[in-house]
């Protein structure tokens, strides 16, 4: 039996808005702000509802036509940055 994929989802305490085509997020608990780049902004709606790493990779591949490996590295870096900023819920 394979393990369920890890769910990647924003904390409910994260408030965000799109400004000039980029997501700006506020962690209401820590009062820190974060601005996503265009790639992060593309992935953001998936994070709101909760997603998986594979789905994020697929979204990048679909949008930019890059390889799975390159997309996976980008997703890892992006998710790592969100986790460092304490914007993500604990993995389910």
């Amino acid at each position, binding site marked *: 039996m394979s393990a369920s994929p890890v769910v990647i989802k924003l904390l409910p305490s994260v408030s965000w808005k799109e*400004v000039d085509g980029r997501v700006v997020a506020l962690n209401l608990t820590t009062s820190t702000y974060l601005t996503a780049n265009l790639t992060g902004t593309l992935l953001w709606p998936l994070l709101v509802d909760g997603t998986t790493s594979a789905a994020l990779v697929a979204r990048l591949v679909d949008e930019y036509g890059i390889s799975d490996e390159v997309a996976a590295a980008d997703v890892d870096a992006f998710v790592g940055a969100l986790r460092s900023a304490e914007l993500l819920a604990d993995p389910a």
Partner: protein
Amino acid sequence: MSQPRICRLYGLDVESPYDIGPPSSATEPNVVVTVADECVDQSLEVAGDELAVDPLEPSRFVTLAVGDGQLLHRIHSVADVAIDVRAGRITVHPAVGGRHELIPLLAGAQILAVYLTALGHLVLHASAVEIDGRAVGLVGDSGSGKSTLAAMSCTAGARMVSDDVVRVMTCDDGVMAWSGPRALRLRPTSRALASVEIAEVTADERHLFAPDPTSSDVLALDRLVLPRLVVENGVLWRRRLSGERALFALLRYLRIGGWTDPVTAAEHFGRCAELVERVPVFVLEVPWGVDRPRLGRQVFELLRESADVDEISRPVLD
């Protein structure tokens, strides 16, 4: 203190014992400010949930939730202010041994700003002037030059809308700025003092200048400008901020900042984000340090220059 009168400030009809703004035509106030006879001992702790602390100088004020719809805004060494948000009642309790002479100034600015913020309104640390029938907000911390630039532009033809506090409201028709105190409190070091007539010196040792006021209660907000006084370099420079930078800047310049309460913080974030989407935000660098008699006129002209131009650099004329 004199008999209570009703003033019109920030879209409110405020009854208070102080002359804090232009008279209102209303016969009934929607906010009543009273001053308690007895002084309060601020060495005593007050029980409540902390909502906000002055982000620049934590010892200056704290705001607590002390009951359902009840706030206590403690201005250290001045007064405790009890605010009943729903009833529109504000009671000032002077502090034992405090600087009571500051209470009228604070009543017309900081205290009403707390009340408006508690009601969910966006209140900027800004002054505003009317140019060509629309409001231009000058946003920044104390000492950033917003009152000075307002005074300079008023000597060149602008009309005063509000000093130090600007209530902003977004609606279907656009973004509006409410008028507030029409007199400017200038620091003794303000260069604008050279060209204006001072009415009096205030309790906080500022020089009061009463320029021509706007006749409007509320105006369309045309733009926001962040003054930057720079060491003389002979150039006036205006540049538009990106939405992201404008948002971060405005979040720094809320009139009552330091809200740790997540609900209020989220409201501010959302309202500021909406504001920067609808109103251009500029930085205006103004040379400082050498007398330039035509600088006020040039500042005025640059404030009214088309908002569609992202960047303008212009030599200062002698």
